């Protein structure tokens, strides 16, 4: 493989939430690279560790109880999290430097637009704040630019003086997006940006994000549970389960050459809009308790193909092609054909 121009490199990241009662293993050694200008989808269900991964990139995992245990993260060649000689992670930047990165080089959109905006400041103030912080302009200039970015996301600039409660859900999400884009970040992290919205509004917001991604040439990390959104937006996909990336590849790899039993289960769980008579084939059982993960493969208790080996030995990453890897014992023999 040739060396690519990566915007984001995550290597062997593990994050745990440590409380008196238990340790929650939220993220357990994941690798994730995003090339400049590309869109990477991260798919998983509740509790898979998607949001924790995103917060790690900003070094905003709530501490306590959250701790980045191992792994390194670098953004556009700059280290955010590094590893010392003992293999433990430490923040490579001071809090000051980190503040300079956040909102400037990497910005994030959160799931629930209803609660993501501070209710006591006008939306203009909140956007201008980011601009003032990173572009060192005066308040008036910042407000002017805030109005401009609002126009870009389709909100009249005059509404900059309104408070968040005066906007509908879809409009609020546009405000959040404009806030994230205010300083032209190289990487945008979108954490379920449309889950709280209605379908027709979701379509509008997704369309807007596609446009803006092109316009600003940013890399995008799209976190979602909706494979439909992935199909529409992404270049590469990682499927996450219980803190691991169990399958990774480009769109074709994942949608047409599905290899991991969990990925297949996800597809089978979705009602097929083109073939309404087909019966749903759900994955049996439940997500494992992240404070008490199975010894071997985390998916083993729900997997129809599980063998003895799966119970005891965690599977390793197996590359099926240049772009596609899977973590499953089914492919230990080196075959790349589907075993499902």
């Amino acid at each position, binding site marked *: 493989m040739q060396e690519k121009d990566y915007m984001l490199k995550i290597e062997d990241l593990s994050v745990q939430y440590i409380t008196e009662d238990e340790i929650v293993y939220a993220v357990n050694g994941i690798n994730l690279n995003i090339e400049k200008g590309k869109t990477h989808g991260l798919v998983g269900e509740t509790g898979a560790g998607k949001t924790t991964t995103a917060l790690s990139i900003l070094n905003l995992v709530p501490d306590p109880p959250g701790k980045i245990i191992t792994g390194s993260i670098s953004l556009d060649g700059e280290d955010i999290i590094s590893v010392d000689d003992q293999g433990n992670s430490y923040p490579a930047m001071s*809090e000051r430097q980190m503040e*300079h990165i*956040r909102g400037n080089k990497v910005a*994030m959109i*959160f799931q629930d637009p209803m609660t993501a905006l*501070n209710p*006591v400041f006008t939306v203009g103030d909140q956007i201008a704040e*980011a601009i003032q*912080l990173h572009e060192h302009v005066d308040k008036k200039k910042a407000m002017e630019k805030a109005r401009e970015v609002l126009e870009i996301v389709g909100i009249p600039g005059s509404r900059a003086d309104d408070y968040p*409660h005066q906007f509908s859900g879809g409009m609020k999400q546009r405000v959040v997006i404009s806030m994230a884009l205010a300083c032209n970040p190289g990487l945008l992290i979108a954490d379920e940006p449309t889950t709280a919205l209605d379908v027709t509004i979701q379509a509008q917001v997704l369309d807007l994000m596609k446009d803006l991604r092109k316009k600003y040439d940013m890399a995008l990390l799209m976190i979602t549970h909706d494979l439909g959104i992935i199909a529409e937006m992404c270049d590469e996909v990682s499927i996450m389960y219980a803190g691991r990336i169990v399958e990774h590849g480009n769109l074709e790899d994942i949608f047409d050459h599905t290899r991991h039993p969990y990925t297949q289960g996800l597809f089978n769980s979705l009602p097929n809009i083109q073939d309404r008579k087909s019966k749903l084939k759900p994955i049996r059982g439940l997500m494992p308790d992240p404070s008490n993960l199975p010894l071997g493969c985390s998916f083993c208790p729900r997997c129809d193909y599980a063998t003895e080996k799966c119970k005891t030995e965690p599977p390793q990453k197996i590359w099926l092609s240049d772009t596609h890897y899977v973590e499953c014992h089914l492919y230990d023999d080196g075959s790349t054909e589907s075993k499902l």
Partner: protein
Amino acid sequence: MVKYSLKRLVYMIPVTIAVVFIVYLIMYLTPGDPVALMLGAEATPELIQETREALGITKPFLTQFTNYVVNLFQGDFGVSWYTGREVAERLFASIPYTLILTFSGMFVALICSIPMGVMAAVKQNTPVDYIVSVLAICGVSAPSFWVGIMLILLLAVEFQLLPSAGIDGWTSYIMPTLTMGFNMLASVTRTQRSSMLEVLRADYIRTAKAKGVSNFNATYKHALRNAIIPAITVAGINFGTLMAGSVAIETVFAIPGVGRLMIDSIKLHDTPTVVGCMVFVALMVSIINLVVDLLYAFIDPRIKAQYIREGGSK
């Protein structure tokens, strides 16, 4: 907003009348003869009867009450049944002491409690938090008159820094103010701490940090403004307690305020003076509540919008 405030001000009128009714009724039912107390042992029955008629005490309750209310709205607090002089005279002489005490107490309490509460929340589960929490729980539990006595023992008796009682220059206000403020300080600190803890976990604080806002600004600019509302609520509710507390504190420090006046008048069965004091207190409480509600609107645009809606309809 103006409409809303006016509505609230108008609403104070029936509340005041109701307060007068309740207090007047209680005093009316109280056994004992105020005139006998006033005139002393050697007064003749005729004189007593004459004085009673002159004061209007012989009239039925409802007439007395209606007369009082009518006079009150003309700014007339009536004549004391004990001294025979205008109630307003003594009441207005006492009010400044009580006002200075309550407001300076409240001021001290708010100035200290909000930073303390924020600090405890930011440094949750550290020694700072523990010290503040212990201080706060003691503050809400300690009877203010006892705190006053302890302060006298320490600052006036032991170190002889301050005068122990009476009013003699501004130094006389220091201990009563501290005593007054202590309880409110504690309760506001507790509220501020817990609301701050909640707000610090809110999504919009995460959003602010994600766009590069420093920890300091996220706490003091973004979180504080949201977290201060419950603290103000508690301060407003406690204002009544503060006014009531002046009864005991004015006794401890021998200050001739409204609280003292009221206690003395109750003991002497001097209904007009008691009702006058109560009306003053009830009005103060209502006004402070209004101020608090307007303060909300100033801090939180959502509440402002709600007031404008309420003011508009009907």
